[in-house]
């Protein structure tokens, strides 16, 4: 831990990783809270895994066919938006079960990604970084993108909080009140998709699901209003990412996995404390 603090003052790459952790936590806390109260963390999961298809295909087009303007980021944005719109459309129009739709998008996206990655020359290290991310490799450009996303999310939640809350609580009632619920839902899913894409670049597909779900779940246990839940989720996200980063640093453990386990430990500890408190009350 001390070594981490010492090196933090010395190495710009660590400072960038720290900044990325904090910026990503803001987005995770906001989107994670809405995704959690709407019980759609699995939609975020499906979109996240689907981005592997986009990133794999883009990497293939870039290195094998020499289309240098296509980057994994553009591929990820494209596939995440396609996944979000497809899920929104199928949910509204199809009689398929929701979990079937999500499993299909999830698996098909990953399969496409794996196919392209296997046909792309180079190291398979790409795959590992897509799945688990590497927060220590963040570029200044990434930071600018995430900062912009944070600004957008903060503004959107302040301006449309009441509409978002009403739809999250009771979609049908919101529809009857005259809100364009389908439009809100589509924009919401696209926002989830963009958040997922930007954060996947940082923390990887698997970590993003954990960062959306776990801090918000913990926050939900200890707060009773949405605005406070968002604040607490953001703080817990920062605590998990910065904590995980510093714990993993000296023993040279993978940062992503350590961050997930930190967030999970916080959830379990909160849950245990609340259960003991509940028992003592009786």
């Amino acid at each position: 831990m001390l070594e981490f603090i010492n090196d933090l003052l010395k190495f710009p790459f660590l400072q960038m990783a720290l900044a990325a952790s904090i910026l990503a936590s803001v987005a995770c806390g906001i989107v994670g809270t809405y995704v959690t109260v709407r019980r759609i963390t699995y939609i975020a999961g499906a979109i996240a895994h689907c981005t592997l298809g986009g990133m794999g295909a883009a990497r293939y087009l870039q290195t094998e066919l020499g289309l240098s303007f296509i980057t994994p980021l553009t591929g990820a944005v494209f596939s995440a938006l396609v996944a979000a719109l497809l899920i929104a459309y199928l949910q509204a129009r199809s009689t398929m079960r929701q979990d079937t739709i999500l499993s299909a998008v999830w698996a098909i996206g990953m399969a496409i990604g794996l196919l392209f990655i296997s046909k792309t020359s180079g190291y398979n290290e790409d795959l590992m970084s897509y799945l688990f991310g590497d927060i220590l490799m963040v570029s200044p450009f990434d930071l600018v993108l995430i900062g912009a996303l944070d600004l957008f999310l903060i503004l959107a939640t302040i301006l449309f909080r009441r509409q978002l809350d009403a739809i999250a609580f009771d979609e049908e009632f919101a529809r009857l009140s005259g809100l364009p619920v389908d439009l809100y839902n589509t924009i919401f899913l696209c926002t989830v998709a963009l958040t997922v894409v930007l954060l996947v670049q940082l923390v990887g597909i698997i970590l993003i699901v954990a960062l959306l779900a776990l801090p918000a779940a913990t926050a939900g246990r200890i707060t009773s209003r949405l605005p406070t839940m968002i604040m607490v989720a953001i703080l817990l996200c920062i605590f998990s990412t910065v904590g995980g980063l510093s714990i993993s640093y000296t023993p040279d453990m993978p940062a992503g996995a350590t961050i997930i386990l930190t967030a999970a430990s916080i959830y379990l500890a909160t849950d245990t404390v609340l259960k003991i408190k509940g028992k003592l009350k009786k």
Partner: protein
Amino acid sequence: MQNSKIADIVLEQVYFSYNGEPVLENVNLTIDRGEFIGIIGPNGGGKTTLLRLILGLLTPDSGTIHVFGRPPKEVSYRIGYVPQHLQFDPRFPATVFDIVRMGQIGRRRFGRQATEEKRAADDALAAVGLSPYKNKSFIDLSGGQRQRALIARALASDPHLLLFDEPTANVDSTAGEKLYQILAELNKRMTILVVSHDIGFVNHHITSVVCVNHQVVIHPTSALVGQNIIDLYGQDISLVRHDHRCSGEGHSCSNS
């Protein structure tokens, strides 16, 4: 409000089927302003479908539906809909006041002040007797209180018609009686429709009963006698008699 013979809801020759399975057939129904209607019938008989047609959430295969003389979708914001409290995430992080304010979401207009909206929400809470619970968490309410919070949410949008889906489901009988007292008070200002599985409920506030089992017939409460119930449910069940006043309109049931 009680100036009678203004029809709030008119259904004419309405047919509705779900996946090719007919749910409602040839429904003709007129509900006048100021009535307090109980909608009863067996599970799968089409009660909820009827409610959703009136709300404009479903479109009939054929026939016409008018609410306040207009297609339901155009006036749904004037209908206060109160769903069952059970369908909500019991962990949703919001205070009672937050929930009630959600009722005003579609009515935001320029010039309408936030303070005015808050006062309307306070009035709605007072009407259901939940004022002391204003800042309590929705999670901490009992079933009956949650149901009342949802009524307040519907009232906060200043509706002209209230529709209830099973208001007394999973609510104990004292809380259920309290709910009906609140509804009776509200009935002085607006038309009320209540869907219920419960046939014993028909409490003296209800003016007419709509029986739904693929077809729809309307009875004044006094006319709901044994044979109708047997026709509706296909078996004899014990009956609770309530109001014996006979409505001037008489018994309009034709196919029982």
